[in-house]
């Protein structure tokens, strides 16, 4: 069958047409015209993120360096690799039942792509912290937090703090010496919070010292609670970019 016949057969039926809305580049009859370019954005789920048209200067790589977009990409990548890791991990520790640590050993030794996915998750997490920081610096140096974007800057700072907390809660999960003592430093600091220091530390540790309860608590924070809060703030952050008039500048 000729290539064009195959394309027509695939595209010209009710199922294909029901999936790809008019203006989709995958639909039959897409032409590279202004109308179809506009429809390609408008009739796409990406319309939640991007408007039909963007300022030309924002396309220049040296304006944004894609830092915000790449931070989000890291978040997506960490979600995907994180879900993979969850299949092979049990947040259980304690004398005689060091399941979490054994899972880590098995992950690198006998799970297909286990070590690679764990590496992606680890380095991706470091990359995300760094990218979010760079994104903040870029926004500051462009004065992009100025009216009407003040509140979105505040949301961004909250997202930076959430990113740090996400990364830090994940740090404990391998349940090795490195994790235990790094977290020891962090939770000791939390114990010095004014007035409620002891209570804050108790809530974070699930007890008076780092133990199996801490591991379970940080696991739930890491895989469910903090990502959920982060997604809510991400949604507001992206929505506000568009409501505040799209990308800032030009300078």
């Amino acid at each position, binding site marked *: 069958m000729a290539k064009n016949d195959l394309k027509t057969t695939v595209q010209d039926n009710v199922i294909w047409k029901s999936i790809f809305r008019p203006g989709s580049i995958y639909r039959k009859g897409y032409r590279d015209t202004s109308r179809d370019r*506009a429809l390609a954005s408008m009739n796409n789920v990406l319309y939640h993120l*991007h408007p039909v*048209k963007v300022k030309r200067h924002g396309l220049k790589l040296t304006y944004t360096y894609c830092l915000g977009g790449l931070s989000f990409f890291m978040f997506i990548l960490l979600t995907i690799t994180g879900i993979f890791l969850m299949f092979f991990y049990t947040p259980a520790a304690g004398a005689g039942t060091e399941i979490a640590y054994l899972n880590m050993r098995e992950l690198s030794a006998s799970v297909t792509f286990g070590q690679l996915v764990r590496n992606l*998750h680890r*380095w991706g997490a470091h990359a995300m912290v760094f990218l979010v920081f760079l994104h903040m610096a870029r926004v500051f140096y462009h004065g992009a937090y*100025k*009216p009407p974007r003040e509140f979105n800057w505040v949301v961004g700072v909250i997202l930076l703090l959430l990113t*740090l907390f996400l990364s830090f809660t994940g740090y404990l999960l391998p349940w090795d010496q490195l994790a235990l003592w790094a977290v020891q*430093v962090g939770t000791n600091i939390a114990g010095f919070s004014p007035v409620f220091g002891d209570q804050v530390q108790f809530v974070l540790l699930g007890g008076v010292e780092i133990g199996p309860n801490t591991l379970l608590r940080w696991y739930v924070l890491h895989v469910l609670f903090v990502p959920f809060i982060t997604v809510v703030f991400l949604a507001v952050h992206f929505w506000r970019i568009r409501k505040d008039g799209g990308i800032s500048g030009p300078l």
Partner: protein
Amino acid sequence: MSDEVQIDQEVYDRLIGEGKSERIARAKAKAASVRKAKIAEGQSLGPRSADEASKALEEFRANAGGGGVATKTEAPADAGGGGRLTPEQRAARVAASLGNGGDKQPASMGVPTSGEHTHRLLALVPPAGIQQVQSKQMDKVYTWPHLLLVEFVALLAAGSLLLIVSFFLDAPLGSLANPNDVPAINKAPWYFMGLQELLAYFHPMVAGITLPGVFAVMLMAAPYVDKNPSAKPENRKVAVLGFTFFCVFWGVLVIIGSFIRGAGYEWVWPWITGLGFTL
């Protein structure tokens, strides 16, 4: 008209005599002096009232042949295909209307090619009838394909870089956690090394709670404190300097904490004991 405008003393005295205010008399006297000077130079003057203006317009129409009345440009007889113009025909028409069409130019375009410049008042619109558009007209491009392609390439580049790093560099995994075995070097992840370094100088409540809290609030308050409307770097030296100082301050703390701290969190040069640092 750079030199000082003289006032016509005769007109001024007459107006003062009529009981006009000093301000009005001076203004009218100035206008009279300018008018006199123009007449002396042989320039023509504009209409002084609405009646004069409409009279002048009628005179102009009679002389210039139907100016101000929209007349249909004759469509080319050979325009085929449902009245659409070929590119050549369109170009010819545009050239004609711009006054470059030579003798093909219709006499009724309403713009005299020679002689005096004139102005036509087309309509008066009350300010309330004008829609105020706040946003500036900007140079924009379609998101698809321009922006999405850039984003896709950036995504592929970052993804491949991360994959390559992950392929060659394994994430660290120490020995099993043991609360009774305190390691010689005990460090937080790198992004918290700044805090841990501060702990070496201040009481934990100051270094661990107060200072980071103040920094976080300062960061969030930045857009409300910085009232300078300009986004140009040359107009906001204080803000740029302040933020750069903030970043360098944290960067230096992180580098000291990560690389120049060894066993017991003592100051040790990395070339003596090696890097006491794990990602």
